[in-house]
């Protein structure tokens, strides 16, 4: 391509023929160049599609979960064999509830209860989460003891994967998690509409679990919400105040220059460095609890601050000087001018910047790993001081699990995260379109 321009001397010396050849080559180079550009754009979009396709194709099944309707007999013999529940409430806590569910399924399938091997295989089709589910039912209403009720019990993770067609049935049954007998039962139950896929509410409500079918992002969502709240409460007012000072009041001197360079630089500092800061200052020095959303929120606030400041300053700059002059001319003080006139006009820009900063903070993982949010948290955190985890951190933890059912959950969690981000960004765009003013 380097010879695309013919030297002028050669053009003048030779005839028209030679110039035509040059032009042909130059136009070919032009077409090639345009093609490169188009290919680059196509590649970019291809990567985006591949990424989204992978996540969605792997993850959409996570929003459905296989459950089995089992007629559970709450037999007193199993729940409370010694009849001591009146004196000792602990008895109901410790009972062997999974056996109830298993017996129900065995009866449903018509298996001989004496055949230990078949009974155990049938029991493995049910999630061990049935323990908590049935226990809570009994604790809530002890009068159901002795009755038989139909209960929707989650299928185990392996059966769930098999029912969704994610298990390769051509592999020898000894080398997969579900054997042919279980598959046959599964199909039999599915035909009778006893085993069905239902919407997976557990994905949104459960906390961490070592069993895929009872693992969810409930705790992670709460943790992320706490942190977003803290970021909003801290970073928005501080960011706006800092920008107002720098844009409207600050004298032009070394100190303001230093602050400005600092903010630009902080915006480009790797996020993991903020994690180290949080670990050293908030946890080691100030003695705040590890794994708490409070510390996570503080770290993310510091990280989001530069984004909010840069956006707010741009919004303040866009307010025309005539507004300021008019306010001052009518006798407003500088503070009144800013707070009564400039800031309200800049508000849409500030909101947009804040939402984008929040979206950034919501997707951030690395600093949270360092302050111990990689925790196995089962219960919903009651306050920001309690151990919690965050949506992206939950994704990270699940990504390291090998089971097929967890890959599905990971992708499902990513879809939820991307959903949140999409909503936030679209809100920002709508705000900008609706309220942006051009002077």
């Amino acid at each position, binding site marked *: 391509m380097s010879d*695309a*321009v013919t030297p002028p001397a050669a053009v003048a010396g030779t005839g028209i023929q030679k110039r035509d050849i040059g032009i042909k080559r*130059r*136009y070919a180079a032009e077409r090639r160049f*345009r093609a*490169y*550009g*188009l290919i*680059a*754009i196509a*590649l*970019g*979009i291809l*990567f985006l599609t*591949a*990424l989204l396709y*992978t*996540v969605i194709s792997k993850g959409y099944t996570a929003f459905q979960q296989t459950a089995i309707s089992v007629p559970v007999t709450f037999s007193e013999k199993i729940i409370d064999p010694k009849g001591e529940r009146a004196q000792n409430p602990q008895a109901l806590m410790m009972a062997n509830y999974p056996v109830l569910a298993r017996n129900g399924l065995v009866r449903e399938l018509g298996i001989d209860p004496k055949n230990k091997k078949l009974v155990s295989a049938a029991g493995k089709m049910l999630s061990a989460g049935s323990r908590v589910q049935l226990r809570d039912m009994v604790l809530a209403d002890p009068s159901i003891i002795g009755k038989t009720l139909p209960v929707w019990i989650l299928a185990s993770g392996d059966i769930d994967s098999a029912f969704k067609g994610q298990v390769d049935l051509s592999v020898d049954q000894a080398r997969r998690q579900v054997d042919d007998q279980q598959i046959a039962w599964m199909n039999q139950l599915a035909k009778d509409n006893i085993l069905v896929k239902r919407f997976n509410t557990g994905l949104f409500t459960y906390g961490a679990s070592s069993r895929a079918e009872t693992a969810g992002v409930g705790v992670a969502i709460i943790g992320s919400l706490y942190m977003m709240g803290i970021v909003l409460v801290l970073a928005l*007012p*501080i*960011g706006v*105040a*800092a920008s107002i*000072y720098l844009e409207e*009041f600050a004298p032009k001197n070394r100190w303001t220059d*230093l*602050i400005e*360079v600092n903010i*630009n*630089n*902080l915006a*480009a*500092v*790797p996020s*993991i*460095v903020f994690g*180290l*800061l949080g*670990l*050293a200052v908030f946890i080691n020095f100030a003695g705040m609890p590890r794994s708490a959303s409070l510390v996570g929120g503080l770290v993310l606030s*510091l990280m989001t*601050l*530069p984004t909010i400041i840069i956006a707010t300053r741009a919004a303040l700059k866009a307010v025309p000087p005539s507004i300021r002059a008019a306010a001052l001319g009518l006798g407003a*003080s*500088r*503070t009144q001018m800013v707070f009564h006139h400039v800031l309200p006009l800049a508000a849409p820009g500030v909101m947009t910047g804040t939402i984008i900063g929040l979206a950034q903070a*919501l*997707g951030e*993982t*690395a600093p949270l*790993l*360092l302050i111990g949010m*990689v925790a196995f948290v089962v219960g919903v955190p009651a306050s920001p001081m309690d151990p919690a985890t965050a949506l*992206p951190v939950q*994704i*990270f933890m699940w*990504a390291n699990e090998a089971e097929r059912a967890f890959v599905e959950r990971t992708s499902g969690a*990513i879809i939820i*995260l991307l959903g949140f*981000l999409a909503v936030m960004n679209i809100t920002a765009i709508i705000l900008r379109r609706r309220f942006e003013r051009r002077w």
Partner: protein
Amino acid sequence: MNAATTIVIVLCLAALGYVAGRLRANRVAGNVASSLHSRSGYYGAFVAIFTALPSLFVLAAWLIVSPMVINSQVFDSLPREIQALPDTDHALQMGKINSIAQGLEQLTPQDEARLKSGAVDMRSLLGEKGVAIAGEVEDYMPAAARKLSAMHSASGLYRTFVIILLAAVGLMWSWIQIKPRMRARNSVEAVIIAGLMLASSIAILTTVGIVLSMVSETYRFFTSVPPLEFFFGTVWDPRFAAAGAEDSAGQFGLIPLLAGTLYIAFVAMLVAVPIGLYAAIYMSEYAGQRLRSVVKPLLEVLAGIPTIVYGFFALTTVGPFLRDISAQIHGLAFGEVSSFIQAQSVLTAGLVMGIMLIPFVSSLSDDIITAVPQAMRDGSLGLGATHSETIRRVIFPAALPGIVGALLLTASRAIGETMIVVLAAGVAARLSLNPFEPMTTVTVKIVNQLTGDLEFTSPQTLVAFALGITLFVITLCLNFYALYIVRKYREAYE
């Protein structure tokens, strides 16, 4: 009374002060607004500020200072042999005494009686109350714990009294100050501007915090590992397993990590720069308004996707895909199917990181190319150059400094990127030039050393801060240089 209640009381007093100040301002003005210097609300705010600000300030100082004073007093009352222990044990002992004190406060009189009669020992009794004590309760501890809680409650009592008194005095004093000629607005605005100034210095404080925290921990690290060994060592082997044993010195060589970081960043730039630049050129020079309005947001979606999602994509899709395709190629070439690209490799991590960086390169360069004055394009086209010649010979050289700046910013992002490399690059610290094998990076090792159980005295943990400050300095230099170039270039055309 706890601090939160005190704050609420102070705020209530401040609200009261606001109302009282307004009323007094109106009264002294004889309900003629024009005879006041400021509007009556400012007098209210003046009183509220003088009520709340000094007392909240003292409260904050008290909350920080009083635990230190109490701890040192309790510590002085401990037996001599305990005081002679090394510093790390002190923290442990004080922690225990603290939790015992917490537990003792929850005991009922019956519990106290049981404790006195010796029916239960203190540790199991506190365990019942949900306060777990690590290790045995030593004989001197209950006394120290009782002293600690007594001092705490005394401090709390004094604190509440002093704070509320201060708030009341502030209210009275400022209320008396109100006169028609008093310039309440000027005082209130001075406080507001001071607040704004304080907010803007948070950025500086953050940087200072980063530098100080990392420097102090790094200094502690260098007391056990000499800096030369860290910066020029070629072996990374921190030996986690034998933590606590004397011979587990471990080797902390930065070189393999740095090499991995730079190598992966280089591969990522190889992917991102051509695609991003060509996309930016096409969009700013060739594309029509409609194509641009579709493609630009689409590429920016790539920038909005969290890096953990890219990491997952690399781990579950790109890595296995490269491994399988390399096996196919190997099979075609040599007739024997074996993959020469590993699932976790420099290539996987670099490729995916490159995808992540495309929008950074393209949107930054797009802005810079658009900023080149139209006159330069017109001149070149007018002299008979084709469009692509104009771009390559005129626009690109004119935009080059800015683009270099943009690329430096992108490179600093690539070096600091964490989640993609944690999931896709592997953890094996080694020096090699083969992009098909795993290598590891500085960020991966920071995460590795700091997740799990931490002990903040071992070099195995402290090394993370040394790595962090290395990373910080590298990206800082890149950012400064990039910002400098971008700024300088911008001035040339404005």
